[in-house]
């Protein structure tokens, strides 16, 4: 056997073993997993909101995984009543587990902050509801309209006076902001027992 063939075979064996172990076996192991109770497939609007979440890279500051009691303080911080399980993610086609918490974890955001007005104001101007936040504002998901032009179907967003548009104007959420909110409301962890059954 020539030396270059030895290198080739050795290198190939090394990578195919780790690929099998770290990619294929977990896929098999989790392929039969049931969604945890309370986890449903996304509706059309929720999926569109999720696409916006992916598109604008929310993952780079917000993880979606609650760590168990005894490892980190996630549960004591109120970021979830239980740790995340693989069954929570079965409908997630682009995983958004994340590796960063410049902002808080969002896996249970719907439980602790369900208010639509809060979320829309937060997206329009994070510092209007969370002073000191470093989150970017997303004004392009909103429209600033004259009060007289607001349609009955428009969702207007109450904004803290310090950040509100000038007198006579109002902030109206575009569809993408509403879809994003609807996606965030799917992020809710139902309380479960240790073994993953409903309480």
């Amino acid at each position, binding site marked *: 056997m020539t030396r270059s063939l030895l290198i080739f075979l050795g290198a190939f064996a090394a*990578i195919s073993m780790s690929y099998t172990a*770290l*990619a294929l076996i977990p896929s098999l192991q989790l392929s039969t997993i049931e969604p945890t109770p309370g986890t449903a497939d996304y509706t059309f609007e929720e999926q569109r909101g999720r696409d916006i979440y992916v*598109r604008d890279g929310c993952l780079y500051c917000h993880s979606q995984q609650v760590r168990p009691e005894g490892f*980190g303080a996630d549960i004591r911080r109120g970021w979830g009543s239980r740790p995340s399980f*693989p069954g929570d993610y079965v409908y997630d086609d682009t995983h958004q587990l994340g590796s*960063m918490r410049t902002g808080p974890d969002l896996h249970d955001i719907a439980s602790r902050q369900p208010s639509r007005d809060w979320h829309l104001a937060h997206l329009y101007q994070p510092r209007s509801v969370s002073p000191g936040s470093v989150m*970017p504002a997303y004004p392009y998901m909103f429209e600033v309209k004259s009060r007289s032009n607001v349609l009955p179907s428009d969702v207007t967003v109450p904004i803290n006076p310090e950040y509100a548009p000038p007198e006579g104007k109002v902030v109206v959420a575009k569809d993408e902001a509403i879809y994003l909110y609807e996606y965030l409301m799917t992020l809710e962890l139902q309380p479960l027992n240790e073994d993953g059954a409903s309480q």
Partner: protein
Amino acid sequence: MPESDVTPPSSTPGLPPGASPDTLEANWRRGVDRSTRLPVIAFVGSSVFWLLIGSIFAIIASLKFQMPDWLVQSGWLTFGRIRPAHLNTVIYGWLSMGGIGIATWLWARLLKTKLRGRWMLMLSAALWNLGMVLGTIGILIGHSRAIEWVEMPYYAFAFIVPAMLLVVVPFVWTLRHRRVKHLFISVWYLGASMLWTPFLLIAVLLPIYQGVPEATVNWWYAHNILGLWLTPVGLAAAYYFIPKVIGRPVYSYHLSYLGFWTLALFYNWAGVHHLVGGPAPQWLVTVSIVFSVMMIVPVVVVAVNHHMTVVGHFKKLKYSPTLRFVVFGAMSYTVVSLQGSLQSLRSWQEITHFTHYTIAHSHLGVYAFATMIVFGAMYYIMPRAMNWEWESPRLISIHFWTTGLGVGAYFTGLTIGGVIQGIQMLDPSIDFLTIVEDTKPWLAVRTVAGTLMTIGHFVFAYLMYRIITRSGTRREGPVYFHPAPAGMFGSGAGDGSSAETTATPSGATRSARSDDDAERPGL
């Protein structure tokens, strides 16, 4: 030019009058170097372009922490798009293209034969750049897949994967025409990574994963693109250039192969420690932690080999730009890898996971190790491929100090900031917004440090532009930071052909043969 090879001179009989075997061999080697010129210009030139683009994205992303309401009016400059655009341009544009440029030159040099299939490399560079343009624009206009380290949309990888495969063909072709029996360790690393990288890319792009398994594949890939692509290229370059410039053989022949096989066997398993504490199966995370810790073996082996080669020759760092950058990179490799092994432990991850500490760690690997070695290698390669010298030692010095101090400040700032952030996050009585407030000074350090590094990149790009266009006056002799004392890099040092042969299986060290191109000893 036909792909005929120049036969290396074998022995003295039949020499033309006045020609010594050394000068003939030097001429022949110059022919080998010249055969790599066009692909080296294509890949190295493109890589520097992407370095500048990536640096600009980095500055914008970092400044947004100081000014979160800056450039928010439209989506394409929002943080969540600029940041992955930064990562993808520096990984796939700067380091990958630069790495292939360096590998191309090293490959011909180490196999002592002219590069075959250059047109394929040129085509590959064109496809690769096209893929980068599409991918970068794709992320910015909102086609990011938000899978960390593989954000570019499929239509960008549709160009990059074939480009990667196209690189393999000329490499194998050249290997088949090699004029050496013994394969130097750098060939091992480069050859293996030419198999690993397309494997990794294709495997991660398969649309067969969902939910948590997608996350494990994601981190298997993301960690391996560092470990099985950027690391082998960086180590191959360090194994070549350190002994080369110093003029002494690699410390131990046996250790270098132990280092190779342990890296090949251990590194690929280490990535899933990024999911520690998360919803991935526990056995997976445990396996990854075990292998992360076992990485101490290849790291220590490589560290001993590199640093023992330098010991006794530290004063040469004062003169040679190549040596200074490469040794900086090799030392950073030791630090970042040992840090990586330690921080994979659950107790340490509990604090540092999800914090800016991780960003500091990745920049220690991707920048202080890989990027600095790539800079050093380019300082050696370009004068030989172009047959033209660098314009200004002063500018090289500015490049070194801005990037070296910049990454030092970057790493220190975010490490401290990240640990504070992590400790505070473990205390639920501390309000989250207080933690955000407390990280702000460290994020400001990051912007300042990043700006410093970017200044260095523009200086480097200017030097690169001048050498590729062969501008300025022709310099005599190599560029050193200071005039080198006579004999420092003289005959016997910086040997052209011996770095790959002087570490013999018996461990005996032969004195290095005289230099490949005597007018540029040591650099």
